[in-house]
């Protein structure tokens, strides 16, 4: 069963398109989903500015408030174009748990 992962990125200014990785979501088409997100946001604070960290932290954690399915994740990767974005899913033969580890 192939699996996929997408990297959660913070993009403080979509015009400059500079980005920083803050998490990963791994999933497969059987609906197994695992994720991992930064515990320490100090580096993001330095990158994005202190004023911007709380909103993006809320947005990132808000991803997991939704009823995530592989299709929902894939749609996020194409539709989220603001300060939190998800990369195009990349393929793997590893299982979802190890992929998110």
């Amino acid at each position: 069963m192939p699996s996929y992962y997408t990297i959660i990125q913070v993009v403080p200014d979509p015009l400059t398109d500079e980005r920083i990785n803050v998490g990963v979501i791994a999933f497969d088409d059987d609906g197994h989903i695992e994720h991992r997100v930064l515990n320490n946001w100090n580096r993001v604070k330095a990158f994005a500015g202190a004023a911007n960290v709380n909103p993006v932290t809320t947005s990132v954690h808000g991803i997991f408030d939704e009823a995530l399915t592989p299709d929902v994740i894939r749609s996020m990767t194409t539709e989220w174009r603001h300060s939190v974005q998800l990369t195009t899913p990349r393929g793997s033969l590893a299982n979802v748990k190890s992929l998110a580890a």
Partner: protein
Amino acid sequence: MTAETFVRNWASYSTPVALRCDDGETYVVKGLQPAKPAMAHAIVLEQVLARLGRIVGAPVPEVVLVDVPQALIDVEPEIAFMSAGLAHGLGLVDNCSDKIGIEAVTSDRNRQAYGRLAVLDGWGHAWRPAADQDAGRGRGVWSVDHGLFAGGKNWTAASLAGLPSPAAPFPDLFAHADQDALDDALLKVHAVTDDALAGVIGWVRPSWGVPTEDLVALAKFLAGRRDTL
């Protein structure tokens, strides 16, 4: 080892890809490409010169063969250009760039590296526009791209025979080289027996399709330059 996860690729002729493998490590992989027949000869140079670099103590990451499964190619469009099977791989050195050039020349680590690379370059007739540098703290130099040695990817027995005798193909390296490291690398070159050289060539996979006579010519080319370096 077997590739499990696509990480990223780089835009260049050989389109190297970073693949995480079943040993938990990530390797930069260059493999056969149906659209680029010259890749077969290119990855022979990559594999052989990288292994020779390790022998002389040059800063070359771990050299491996990576099995790229068709199943991974099927799920990852970014590597659809590759053929499945064994490919050349080098351990990924994070945070490196080939855009930095020759610098951090006062570091002992780099001066020794330049000394050994100067010998490797002379042995394999390198064309090295820039050395890869770790862009992070310390800026350590690494040698990760060996497809432009020995005249490059279109090498043949005839082209190898036409290359000039060993010289300093990149004098900038010599200018910063640590003499002791250079001398030690030369000793290591001269200690490589014909059997050892054949063993290095033996890492080339028959599935890459490079004719035996070309591999023999490469072995003779390297043996000859070893003797005159």
